[in-house]
């Protein structure tokens, strides 16, 4: 079993993803990720010559099948208040969150 994702690297990923785990959960997840990597590593054996394109989408889009770009006309949303209602904390129309840490320069 590959241990490509070390506990340190795992912690870094957790940080990037804005998560937090207890040690059992962390270990389970790290193990599963490494198992998945083993499956992924099959791809390394696939012969790829230089000009095989990256397929961001499976289906190619042609000039005919592409929808047109949007015209620059105002289309007001009919219920912006309903959107704001979904926010956990609102005051005077603003969405409230705690502050972001930053330090002053001496």
């Amino acid at each position, binding site marked *: 079993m590959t241990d490509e994702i070390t506990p340190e690297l795992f912690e870094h990923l957790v940080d*990037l993803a*804005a998560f937090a785990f207890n040690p059992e959960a962390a270990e389970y997840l790290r193990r599963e990720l490494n198992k998945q990597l083993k499956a992924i590593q099959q791809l390394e054996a696939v012969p790829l010559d230089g000009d095989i394109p*990256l397929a*961001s*989408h499976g289906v190619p*889009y042609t*000039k005919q099948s*592409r929808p*047109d*770009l*949007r*015209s*620059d*006309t*105002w*289309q*007001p*949303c009919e219920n*912006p208040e309903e*959107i*704001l209602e*979904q926010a956990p904390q609102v*005051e*005077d*129309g*603003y*969405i*409230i*969150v*705690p*502050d*972001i840490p*930053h*330090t*002053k*320069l001496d």
Partner: protein
Amino acid sequence: MTDYETVIGLETHIQLNTTTKIFCGCKADSWEEPPNTNICPVCTGLPGVLPVLNKAAVHKGALLAAAMHSEIRLTSFFDRKNYFYPDLPKGYQISQYDMAIGKGGFMDLPMPDGDTRRINIEKLHLEEDAGKTKYEHGRRYIDFNRCGVPLVEMVTGPDLRSADEAAQYLIRLRQLLRWLGVSEANMEKGHLRCDANVSIREVGSTELNTKTEIKNVNSIEAVRAAINKEIDRQTALVDSGGRVEAWTLDWDDAHNRLNKMRSKETEADYRYFREPDLLSLELTESWREKVVAELPELPLARRARFETEYDLPEYDADILTGDKPLSEYFEAAVEAYAGDPKVVSNWIMNEILRMLNDLGVSADALTLKPEHLASVLKMVDEGKINSATGKSLLVKVQDSGKAPDVIVREEGLAQVSDDSALLAVIEKILSKNPEEVGSYRDGKTGLFGWFMGQVMRETRGKADPQLTRELLQKQLDGE
């Protein structure tokens, strides 16, 4: 003491003046509106929403690219830039990374010594704006009205060498953006935002040292002040044996100081990848040609042309090409006047500019049209009115909307150039003031001006000054 050279690169974000946002149909301009009213599911990043690209944003972005001598790529891609921030609702910004709409480019910046310096453009791409956060009482207040407004990000190479040059670049950029009609470029309203990357190195070195990034500079003066402060700080630090670290600094305009924001080392890896919810942006060769053909004569080119074509000094040409409407006003007036362009230039630089300042409008909004100005100038040339009358006539035309000759007729402003009428006035004044006449003839020639003033007063300013001088001289000399 070592001699240091400053190396500055500027990263600008330009808000395009389209009607709607880049990926949804909300308004692009919501400056005065209450928070979170100019929003929709797309620009608030609700689950399940998808971006749909605004064709006007593409057009304006391409126009700007062409004006910056960038190559407009026929195929370009959008990419996701992933990071967490409360004003970024999707947790990623849709931007362009390696295959952006603009490739390369430069601006030839005029230097004070008459040379130009080529400022290279390393990035020119389209992206969406984030919302706004304000900080109060330990909490952040978020407003998404601005989220999704179309931006062009332009990044220069490390080609600027002083805070003043940086300020110059921004002034020229702002002029260009307004000239093209792609942005209102008002820095105080956030239409043009700037981050400055600053580093120093020993004079003669070609290496690039660690740079710091200054954010939140909201005016050209703030850019100048912040960069100068940072240069001083880095110089002092290096001189005392310290090392510059890659900090991000926040400019506090109220206190005229820099605050450290975060260390660049811990900056998130943005994990760019192609935006799967958008197809590649495909432009045709003929579309691209049309955009390039659409480019108006640009400010610096027009300035140069005014210098040669109208034989104007650089100073005049620079002011007259300050903005496009003014330059067009000048040319229309010159054409209508068909006389010495320098005369037109003088009147515009003085009278018209003052009027524009007072009214707070641009030249194309004046009721006083270029033809009117030309007409006034011609009347002065012909002696029909004097120059003082001419100046006040401009204001009357602006206020009333009537043609100058109509006003002259209606108000009887025509200059008094009739010899006999003038002579009568002069004789009247001389006879009423025998002591002054005596003083003058005794040698107090300075009184001549006083006599001129009296004649002007008597004729309510309409006396032809030239003729009056002649006749008055003759009378006083006793001929």
